[in-house]
């Protein structure tokens, strides 16, 4: 289908339009987005389309006010302009009041590599995950974004939705379903258990194929919802594993890998298995380039992941 080849952002925006036509509570707020954004909604439902200025603190407060009055605001801007710029508004206006506001964050991870560190969202999952009442989701492709957006309408509290680059390889499968908070077992548990979020699922699948060719079986659990983490599924996936590998387009501290470690550590009945947390180091990247070249720099390409796993296995108990 044409939208499946389209970008995750386009899928998200089209779904907002669909939801807005279906449900009068849905309103859209953007902060000076690209020309033409959601023109259809603007034309047909001008009263529920708000293109505000470059004032993120205000537009989150506005969304809170609308949500307190029963509306369901969907917001879009570049990820760090939510999570860095307006953190207090997100924490107090949205999370403290537990309001159904949806933050659709463009350029999750290192999508904006060519634009530099100001535009990277490399600690967004950690920061959003730290907030009570916040739900944090990073889907793997545009098709999965549609399934998430359909579910988002009635999710009770605030929701942080991380967008990828666009043109992301389609790796999700409608047959596996989608529910916020329910991790998706993409490949059955095995000696090496990968746990991924966002577009790292594509790298995980490729890495698993490379390892399988060398006789190393890999399970893959797609934890699109980083918070609340599907703890039962994570523990079940980790239980039979010799090695757990977490994969995220994010700093190694505070994101999915940390969440998985916390989840495993909180189960006193089982020892924590050997665990490899793959992600970005605790530093602002010093290079430009592209998302792909940054993956290469930080060892997040499939072949590099497979190599890390192969190099780690012999040292395991």
């Amino acid at each position: 289908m044409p939208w499946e080849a389209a970008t995750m952002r386009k899928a998200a925006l089209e779904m907002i339009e669909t939801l807005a036509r279906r449900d009068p509570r849905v309103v859209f707020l953007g902060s000076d987005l690209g020309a033409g954004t959601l023109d259809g909604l603007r034309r047909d439902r001008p009263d529920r389309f708000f293109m505000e200025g470059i004032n993120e603190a205000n537009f989150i407060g506005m969304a809170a006010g609308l949500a307190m009055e029963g509306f369901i605001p969907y917001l879009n801007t570049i990820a760090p302009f939510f999570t860095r710029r307006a953190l207090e508004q997100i924490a107090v206006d949205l999370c403290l009041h537990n309001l159904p506001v949806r933050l659709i964050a463009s350029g999750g991870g290192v999508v904006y590599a060519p634009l530099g560190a100001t535009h990277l969202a490399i600690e967004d999952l950690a920061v959003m995950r730290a907030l009570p009442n916040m739900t944090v989701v990073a889907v793997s492709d545009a098709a999965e974004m549609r399934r998430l957006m359909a579910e988002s309408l009635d999710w009770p509290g605030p929701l942080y939705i991380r967008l990828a680059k666009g043109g992301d390889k389609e790796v999700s499968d409608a047959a596996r379903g989608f529910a916020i908070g329910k991790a998706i077992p993409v490949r059955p548990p095995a000696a090496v258990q990968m746990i991924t979020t966002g577009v790292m699922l594509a790298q995980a699948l490729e890495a698993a194929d490379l390892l399988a060719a060398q006789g190393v079986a890999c399970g893959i659990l797609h934890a699109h919802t980083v918070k609340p983490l599907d703890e039962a599924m994570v523990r079940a996936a980790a239980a039979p594993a010799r090695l757990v590998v977490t994969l995220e387009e994010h700093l190694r501290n505070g994101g999915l890998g940390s969440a998985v470690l916390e989840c495993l550590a909180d189960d006193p009945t089982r020892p924590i298995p050997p665990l490899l947390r793959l992600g970005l180091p605790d530093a602002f990247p010093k290079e430009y380039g592209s998302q792909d070249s940054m993956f290469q720099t930080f060892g997040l390409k499939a072949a590099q992941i497979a190599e890390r796993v192969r190099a780690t296995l012999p040292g395991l108990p």
Partner: protein
Amino acid sequence: MSHPPFHNAAQAIPLDARARFLRRLAVETLEGGGRGHIGSTLSLMEILRVLYDDVMRFRPEEPAWPDRDRFILSKGHGCIAQYVLLADKGFIPRAALRDFCRQHAILGGHPDANKIPGVEASTGALGHGLPIGVGMALAARLRGQAQRVFVVMGDGETNEGSVWEAAMAAGKHRLSNLVALVDYNKLQSYGPTAEVQDMEPFADKWRAFNFAVAEVNGHDVAALRALLTALPLAEGRPTAVICHTIKGKGLPFAEGRADWHHKSKLSAAEIEAMYDALGGRDHA
């Protein structure tokens, strides 16, 4: 000091019996908690009294009545003044005032919308109320409802950039159902606003953001009533009301003194001095 005529009038105007009664309820609250923001509570009192007595539509027995006017105390640290009015109107029992800041109280040092009937938004971090008010005013317009949104801010609070982001949005959306009131007591935590962060020309700032602006003696009940019952000031524009007030109004030893902004430990002698200045304890 800017605006000497307004300031001098605010200083000079005597308090009537209701003003002193509401202040004694505030002292009851301060006594119960042993602490609190005193200066702001007292500078705010007449603004809130007139809003609750004469201006806003609400139903204490039905706090979520859809047609109520919305009220946000954006300077959440002035909450004792709101608690007093909520008790006076019957949203909460008067006895709740004495539990102020205690472990399981509903009334804390900043207002919590999750706990207190009649509180629309939890505030305390400054600069949040006006953006939320913009959203509420838009919601009323979207629904075709007539309710108005009143947001009370502190003068120091308007140092926050988010206030002016919201002011831009309110002007852009021509929210004539939005009323921003500033408790301009001219003292912030460290000292005079004129020294810490001068906001003058203050009225001009609001005008420049497309608000219709009025200035008023914030302790003159008749003047506040006359002004606030004749809103909006202009069709198609949000309203800003700059209320010239005296921090600590009603307590001669606290008026205009930065060290009475907040007290984290109030002595019995200080409490008695406050009651004495306000006509003595109520024996109800």
